[in-house]
């Protein structure tokens, strides 16, 4: 489902963000990517989102060679990836319903279906009663649920989450992680970049540890490794 072959990414400033990284994530897996700041985790997400191009190597996602995509093909590719960010990235001037419906508008889902799908996904993330609220009227945990609903409403086969609990308290962090686990159990491949040691250690999932742009450990039912 996701394959990286000898992928390197160097920024113009100097030190490589990723250095000859290879990894394979199968369909239906739940994977944590952990590591200190500057270890290359966010660069990995940006490469998968095709926000950045690798300096060398090959990235395949759903049998698509990501680096060879032309500008016009990128939107269609991104629709196959649900994405959740640490800072939620919701459209502030739209309510919960409109934020989620927007993802469906993009793929030109008929209005009738949108009216059916959005309440359904909002109920899945536990926000059925707050569909009229604006992002600023919601707690951090609730905003992240909206972002999750938006990421999932088009049923992407892959969900990328970049520090999804970074701005949340422990209770909300757990709730979001439980939701991600449920989503994974329904068949979606989930890749979570995180710093949250407690959650990583408790969930017993595959853990890829990165340091200075290199994968230093890759373990099934792994734990958060502090000192490399």
């Amino acid at each position, binding site marked *: 489902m996701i394959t990286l072959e000898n992928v390197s990414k160097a920024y113009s400033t100097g030190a490589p963000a990723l250095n000859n990284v290879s990894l394979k994530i199968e369909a239906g897996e739940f994977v944590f990517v952990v590591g200190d700041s500057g270890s290359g985790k966010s660069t990995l997400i940006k490469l998968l989102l095709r926000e950045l191009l690798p300096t060398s190597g090959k990235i395949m996602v759903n049998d698509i060679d990501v680096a060879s995509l032309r500008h016009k093909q990128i939107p269609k590719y*991104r629709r196959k990836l649900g994405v959740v960010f640490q800072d939620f990235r919701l459209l502030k*001037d739209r309510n919960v319903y409109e934020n989620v419906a*927007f993802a469906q508008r*993009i793929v030109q889902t008929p209005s009738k279906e949108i009216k059916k799908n959005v309440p359904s996904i909002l109920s899945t993330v536990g926000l059925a009663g707050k569909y009229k609220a604006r992002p600023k009227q919601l707690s951090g945990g609730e905003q992240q649920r909206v972002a999750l609903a938006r990421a999932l409403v088009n*049923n992407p086969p892959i969900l990328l989450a970049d520090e999804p609990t970074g701005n949340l308290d422990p209770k909300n962090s757990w709730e979001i992680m439980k939701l991600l686990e449920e989503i994974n159990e329904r068949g979606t491949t989930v890749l979570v970049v995180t710093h949250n040691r407690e959650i990583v250690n408790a969930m017993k999932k595959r853990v890829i540890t990165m340091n200075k742009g290199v994968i230093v450990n890759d373990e099934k039912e792994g734990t958060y490794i502090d000192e490399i």
Partner: protein
Amino acid sequence: MTRRKVHTSMRFSTLIYTIKQGIVNIFRNKWYSLASMATISACLFMFGIFYSLVANFQYIVKEAQDGVAVTVFFEEGISDERIAEIGSLIEKRAEVSHVNFVSADAAWESFKDDYLGEYADGFGDDNPLPNSANYEVYLNDVSMQDSLVTYVESLDGVRRVNRSEVTANTLSGMNKLIGYASAGIIAILLAVSIFLISNTVTIGISVRKEEINIMKYIGATDFFVRAPFVIEGILIGLAGSVLPLAIIYVIYNNVIAYVSTRFSMLSQLLKFLTVDQVFQVLMPISLIIGIGIGFFGSFSTVRKHIRV
């Protein structure tokens, strides 16, 4: 979780949604929208006022030019056929607007009215100006007067050609001066307007860079992101150009009415353009500038932020 169908072709509902979003955006960003509309309105108002003044000035000069005639007198004993031939030869010239034939009797009548008044009675039915039949030749362009006079003087049967060189030269020079000056000032006004309006549009969209980024991250096409902004830009441009047009329409009518009633002597001497005549040019130009800047401003600014 069941897989939902993903639609790829452009739907009518998407088009309606896009237009609706463009309208909704105007209200969502009401301060930016108001600032943009105000800038467009202020610039086009200045432009409209200046254009109205210049158009009227040119019209007055043109009217004066149209009144400038070259008078062609004939040799004694010339046949009526030759007079008619000379008339048709002059009429064929490109610079000639129209030609009036004034018979000797009509010339005498006019002379009497202009200069003699009741003293003309002493002449009885005699016409002391038997050779005063002439053509009054009106020109399209008074700057061509010299070449016309040279041509007419070369024609057989023409005795003398009267012209008003000073008037022609003054009007011709004035027309050119107004033309150059107004073109220069209008160009500066337009450049300033375009700069100010584009800046306002650019700032307005730049603060929404994050919104554009979010849309792109979740798979929106460039068209889907850009279309509401462009519609918003067009509508702001339209509103921004309609308002000054409406104000100028009202002001113009009132000013013309005021001048006509308060300065009746002036309004007899000078003819002003009607508001409809001014708006024949001013309205399409203002709408094109307003809508055009709204369109291109939003289109090009979104383009800068869209490559995510």
